[in-house]
């Protein structure tokens, strides 16, 4: 069962080396919490790198008996590696993400991320993690053409916010989506959750109002 993202309220990452069982959360925690000393980060990145497959996709769990691979989870892990200037070690993963874009294999969602706009949003986040030329050249224009295909489509506040953020970073105009997002703001200033991710086997969908609101703030500030 994939309940690892919900590790109660304990610190996700502490110097003793306790970390969540999934690589997606671990990669995010590494980037946000920036543990010190840097050797801690290096050793966790080293450990994560052991879970990449031949085709570049990452195992989602620190458990080789579970073969769960998701291109967006892989993109998120890659973003963490690029953030720490180690993206070049994972050329095959970059290619794996590129193929996902090329083949539009996100269009019905992925195993853990059900919304195409969220998928593109996380790939956009990967592009923002580093100014690396090879990363930008590999994904930049391809992502731009894919996000253009989403312009004006219906979506939840989260879908719209992630679409707008991606558009803004690539210089794509999206006024209609911005207006749609503004229309969805609640009286208390928040935006309704929308589905952020889902559990693989059960398909249980997870939403979070604070995440959607934060995405909307970032979108409207872009």
């Amino acid at each position, binding site marked *: 069962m994939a309940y690892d*993202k919900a590790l109660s309220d304990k610190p996700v990452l502490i110097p003793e080396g306790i970390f969540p069982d999934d690589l997606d959360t671990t990669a995010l925690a590494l980037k*946000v919490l920036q543990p010190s000393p840097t050797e801690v980060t290096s050793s966790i990145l080293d450990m994560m790198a052991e879970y990449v497959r031949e085709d570049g996709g990452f195992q989602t769990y620190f458990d080789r008996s579970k073969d769960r691979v998701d291109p967006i989870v892989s993109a998120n892990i890659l973003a963490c590696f690029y953030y720490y200037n180690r993206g070049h070690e994972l050329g095959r993963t970059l290619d794996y993400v590129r193929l996902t874009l090329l083949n539009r294999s996100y269009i019905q969602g992925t195993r853990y991320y059900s919304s195409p706009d969220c998928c593109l949003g996380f790939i956009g986040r990967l592009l*923002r993690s580093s100014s690396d030329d090879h990363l930008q050249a590999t994904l930049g224009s391809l992502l731009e053409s894919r996000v253009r295909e989403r312009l004006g489509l219906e979506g939840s506040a989260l879908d719209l916010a992630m679409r707008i953020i991606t558009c803004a970073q690539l210089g794509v105009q999206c006024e209609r989506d911005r207006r749609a997002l503004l229309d969805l703001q609640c009286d208390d200033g928040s935006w309704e959750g929308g589905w952020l991710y889902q559990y693989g086997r059960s398909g*249980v969908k*997870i939403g*979070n109002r604070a*995440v959607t609101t*934060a995405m*909307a*703030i970032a979108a409207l500030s872009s």
Partner: protein
Amino acid sequence: MDFLQAPPRGLVFDLGDVLFTWSANTTTSIPAQKLRAILSTPIWYSYERGEISRDVCYELSAQQFSLPAPEIAEAFAQARESLQPDHAIVSFLRELKKDPSIHVYAMSNIGKEDFEEIATKTDWEIFDRVFTSATVGMRKPELRFYCHVLDHINLAGNQVVFIDDKEENVSGAQAVGIRGFVFGKPTTHMLHEMLNSPAGKGWRYLFQNVKQCSSITDGGIVFVDNFAKLLVADILKDRYVRNFQAPERNAG
């Protein structure tokens, strides 16, 4: 996208010429310009810091400007009479008072006796706390005064917006990292934009609710979600501890 500025958690206002307007034109023999000059001497500053009483201040000023002390006292009494609160700002602040995530403070260069007199003219309820130069023994633009205020309201400089009519006081605030603005016609509009724009309202929702940051399943189960918490921090490029901590609310 690279620059996400959260609205302030604390607003610090000057009183004279911001929250209050007043006139230096009196029926006494002292012209307005001279009255303002009396306000800008080391003698007056000493009174503002609470080092001397108002009577002593008038006496010393009388000597320096070769004026009768009672005339000076009368002129300033009339000036205090002319004080008018700026209703637009006061009603804006009163509205803001409903939001527990944003606090409003006053920070004023003002002598003890003057403050006691104007205290009867003001709705102090709009302020979470008032800092006067006379009470703390420091005056703007001394940097230590700003640091004193930041320490007591428990906020970092970039979480605070400071409004004052004097350029030098604003520069002082900026020197300690406070977002300082010279008061003018656009001030209320600017604050309104910061706090009530769609993004501003979104931030204020997060200020009040991000602590829980619970996720919910499509089956309605609510749970603590580390991934979501981290993602919010990542999106807004802010550390929780810093930007989402609640400032202390202190009375008077």
